[in-house]
């Protein structure tokens, strides 16, 4: 999977915070998605299926979307920072969430009950909207969370000790002298 996601050199490295950025973007993107769920009546159907109150369902939904956003940041790495392509990656991820969540997870959690009719349509549209929004928001907020050049460059991990293999202290005969 990671090999396929190597656009932009994939690995965010220690200079970026894709999990935090994804979390925040996931929560923010959930706001329009909840609007869609409300419009289609899906939120009430989901609450009924899960046996929760609507506020509690919303709270669970926001928490789940925060986790989903973090997963988006982790999976897409530096590609998620792309301001041009982000919306597309987000929608693709939203589609995957819908496929996994609506088709498998929700029926399993609710012992076979799943939204149908307009409520099912609302769930699909809301996750596409969520994905679109998360893909748009992520590259906007992530730069504020990056390690800055001035501070990041003072880290000992990127200093001269990096020249030693794996940055480990030498072991063995003749290598243990210290000043």
């Amino acid at each position: 999977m990671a090999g396929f996601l190597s656009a932009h050199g994939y690995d965010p490295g220690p200079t970026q915070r894709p999990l935090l950025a994804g979390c925040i973007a996931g929560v923010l993107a959930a706001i329009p998605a909840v609007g869609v769920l409300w419009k289609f009546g899906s939120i009430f159907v989901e609450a009924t299926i899960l046996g929760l109150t609507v506020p509690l369902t919303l709270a669970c939904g926001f928490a789940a979307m925060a986790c989903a956003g973090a997963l988006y940041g982790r999976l897409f790495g530096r590609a998620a920072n792309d301001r041009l392509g982000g919306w597309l990656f987000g929608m693709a991820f939203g589609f995957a969430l819908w496929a996994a969540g609506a088709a498998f997870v929700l029926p399993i959690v609710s012992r076979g009950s799943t939204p149908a009719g307009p409520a099912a349509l609302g769930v699909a549209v809301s996750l596409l909207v969520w994905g679109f929004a998360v893909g748009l928001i992520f590259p906007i907020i992530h730069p504020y969370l990056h390690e800055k050049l001035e501070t990041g460059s003072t880290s000992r991990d990127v200093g001269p000790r990096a020249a030693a293999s794996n940055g480990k202290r030498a072991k063995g005969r003749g290598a243990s002298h210290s000043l």
Partner: protein
Amino acid sequence: MEAVSYALKALGLPVFDLAAELGSVVDGGNRTLGIAAGLLAHAGVGIAWALFYAYFFWGRFDWPRLVQGLVFATIPAVLAVAIVVPQLHLMQLHTDIARVQWRDMPFLSAGQIASIFLVHAIYGVTVGAIYRRPVGYRAGHSPPPPPPARRMERTPDRGRRDPHGFLFATGIECSYPTIDGGRWRRDQLQSTGHYRHWQQDFELCRKMGITHLRYGPPLHLIFTAPGKYDWAWVDEPMAELERYGPEPIVDLCHFGIPDWLGSLENPDLPQALGEYAAAFAERYPWVRFYTPVNEMFVCTRMSAIDGNWNDQKEDDGAFVAIAFNLASASIAMSDAILNVRPDAVFINSESSDFTQPCCPDPQIVELAELENERRFLPLDLIYAHDLSDRMKAHVRERGIADDLLLRFRNREVPRRSVLGLDYYEWNERLIDTDGNIRSLGELFGWYVIANQYYQRYRRPMMHTETNRMDASDAPRWLWRQWHNVQLLRKAGVPLVGFTWYSLTDQIDWNIGLSEALGLVFPVGLFDLNRDVRVVGLAYKQLIDMFRDEPDFRDCKDLAELMN
């Protein structure tokens, strides 16, 4: 895809009409509207999948394009059968909650499933056929030109503070060879987004503390015909560099030539490039540092032996002819620049190579010796160094006359010539028992290989390129290269600069640009979004740590060179 779907339906085959099914969710009783909406939605989904294919799937396997598209299309096909169709059925129920049981799922007939896979296969093959060369452009065409400069805050240029300070450099990757028989132009300045982000790229250099920038304006776009130049490609970037820094080391010819010059064997090439160099130096008389022809040996090998670029030959005779032609061009360019700027400094960048025979087999040893002499050929010519007897015989056999050899040998090499040596993990090679060349990694290291070059030419030197494809290992590689530089300086070699190449990630780096795949390789100080990589942090720390050391702040070797 839809056309085939409807054609099959018209033939009475059991086709599952996904677009109609999509549309039926929103048709509200109007079937035509529903089908139109379904087609539109399906087209949108198709475009999204195609973009996804381009971004993440294309070029990952060494398969024919159509096969890549076909394999990719199985993903949406499987999702359609397993997820989308059942969900569309659920959406059409007149209830809010349904009990999902396996036996209630809307099973499709084998024919319908086959039709879904068939139309998706057509989609995949079409995408595979259309999506061919995502980077570069047809030879003779131009990419969109750089946008005008905008107002922005600029970080002060560190290079100006110390006129004889050690050169802490990076480069904007700018290779522009042609491939595919001269029909397709690779252009790294375009692929890496430099034309769009040129101002931001210079600012990133200043933020890093970079003092000098290896910068190659696009020769093929500027030099449009004999005596004709389109300076719009470079006027504003050069003005920005002049005013705000960093100081450019202008790379005039980087692996490619304008279309109208045709072949690297063209005998008019030296004179034409000399004319270009003169025009450039006259237009930007403040430029002091030049690389007339970058990595002549690499350009020659890739164009004449490996068959990848430009002339795309696999012929030792062509190798010799192109090596001599590029060396002549380099000399013509240097001479032309000196006429305008007598104190110009030439950084003659070349790949530092070494080939090790694997065993005492005379044929293998002979091959390795030939490689180890051939690597010196272009530098021998521009630095007026004697060719070895073996190499003399080799070039004579391939049509080089003695008087031409003598002309190179008697050349007066400009005093301010710096031997620039590039080094990567594949520069040390082994000739295996089967005669194949394999990469050795860092066996002897840059210190040993660079010293071989120094002993031969006795010129001031600069480490002009290095990077690492494994981004997480790049800081280790950076510091190890730096330790090589320090050790060589301590050994008394006049070394005036160091370069991490390049500022941003590069495209198709692993295959030497030989195919236009558009794959990104994380070798830059910054990624293509211009976000810093960990090696960028490491290089900044390195610069901050050493730049104020007396030995680096006032580099006596550079001072001697400049005076």
